[in-house]
């Protein structure tokens, strides 16, 4: 019973952290954009504009809700709900740090350590495609429809190469799909990125495409499709779409950190855990994970304001004819090296 209570608290904390990070990612995105373009960025709401996300959130709630006459009413509402729901579900299997200790009992900082770990994330993420597809189709708007089919076919195309690069990870980490196991096998600086540089690159590019971020933001390329699949959305339904996208970015950054950069592991963690109280070590390891996560979130933003958008045929060719064969080759080479050198 106690463990369930702890997990419930963990779920709530995680939920608040996800929302907080998503909200402040919008702020950070504008600040980073401003910095890269030599502007000031939001600075009116609170000191340095720090209250801007809260002001934006309240504004979203107070806006008029418009459901166009020709749309399918219930599907129109369902779209953003599914997208947000899946975005909030993915954080369940991620190990956030070393276990906490209360009254001599250890509590793992992971909502669910299930043995299908990474498959769970892939599965839930791909359900998110339905949110985009349903939302875009139900709007009964040409731009929304174009955005939706672009978005969904891009997401499914890049899922293949992503799945393949995960297989290479499984090969070198003694075959367990559980994320906590994958993280534990990367003790110290023994990070997967050093064994799988190509796999990491493929995964990173696919993560950009999955999160619909520039240079792969064709589903909502504002200069040609207005807002893409959320053209017709207003009020908090638009808010859910945008918010969920930032949560997805946060989760992608976390998954990249866990798969390739050792999650909460860092050199010296073993020394610390032998000499310091367990709870302090736990907090430090959480800090290590979030340092990596924040770097990748920044990287997502940095790329957005640096690289222009692809053309759609280029995007599809990259996904199918470059990344997919490369990831298959990467998998075979990894498997071959392990088999023939008996590693």
């Amino acid at each position, binding site marked *: 019973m106690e463990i369930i209570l702890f997990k419930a608290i963990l779920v709530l904390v995680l939920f608040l952290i996800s929302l907080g990070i998503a909200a402040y990612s919008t702020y950070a995105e504008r600040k980073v954009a401003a910095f890269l373009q030599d502007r000031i960025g939001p600075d009116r709401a609170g000191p340095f504009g720090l209250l801007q996300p809260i002001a934006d959130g309240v504004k979203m*709630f107070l806006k008029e809700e418009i459901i166009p006459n020709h749309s399918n009413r219930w599907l129109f*509402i369902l779209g953003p*709900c599914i997208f947000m729901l899946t975005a909030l579900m993915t954080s369940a299997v991620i190990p956030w740090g070393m276990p906490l200790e209360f009254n001599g009992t250890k509590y793992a900082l992971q909502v669910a350590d*299930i043995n299908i770990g990474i498959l769970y994330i892939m599965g839930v993420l791909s359900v998110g495609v339905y949110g985009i597809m349903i939302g875009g189709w139900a709007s*009964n708007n040409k731009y929304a429809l174009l955005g939706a089919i672009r978005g969904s076919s891009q997401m499914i195309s890049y*899922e293949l190469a992503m799945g393949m690069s995960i297989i290479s990870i*499984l090969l070198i980490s003694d*075959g367990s*799909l559980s994320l906590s196991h994958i993280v534990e096998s990367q003790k110290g600086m023994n990070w997967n990125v050093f064994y799988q540089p190509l796999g990491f690159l493929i995964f990173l590019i696919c993560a950009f495409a999955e999160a619909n971020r520039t240079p792969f933001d064709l589903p909502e390329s504002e200069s040609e499709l*207005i807002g893409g699949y959320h053209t017709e959305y207003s009020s908090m339904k638009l808010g859910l779409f945008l918010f969920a996208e930032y949560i997805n970015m946060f989760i992608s950054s976390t998954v990249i950190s866990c798969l390739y950069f050792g999650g909460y592991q860092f050199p010296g963690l073993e020394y610390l855990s032998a000499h310091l109280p367990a709870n302090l070590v736990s907090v430090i390891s959480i800090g290590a994970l979030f340092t990596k996560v924040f770097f990748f979130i920044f990287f997502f933003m940095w790329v957005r304001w640096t690289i222009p958008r692809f053309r759609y045929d280029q995007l599809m060719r990259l996904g199918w004819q470059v990344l997919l064969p490369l990831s298959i080759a990467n998998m075979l080479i990894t498997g071959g090296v392990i088999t023939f050198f008996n590693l």
Partner: protein
Amino acid sequence: MSITTEYSAIFIQFLVALGFVVTTMIVSHLAGPRRKTSDKLEVFECGIESEGNARTPFSVRYFMTAILFVLFDVEVVFMYPWAVNFKQLGNVGFIEMLIFVGTLLIGFLYIIKKGALQWEK
């Protein structure tokens, strides 16, 4: 920890997420003003009057992509159990996977030669 505990934790997370989404929807429905006009409820099309229906046929390429995705994704799913048991399967397992991937690549080459992945034509 039992499997039930782990999955009930996922269920709790699902309830929290669902609660958040439903609450947000209801609150934003109640909080916003309602000043509907017929123009506002029209489909948006860059300000000009909207023309025709959006439920029109679109490029068959998207459909092809979806079909190919299903094929290849099933292949990727087949590889997961292999990857998990990779060490136990040893050399034989690796050779078997070479044959499997080889067959897959023949199909992939066929698709490319057929031009199913050509978008610019």
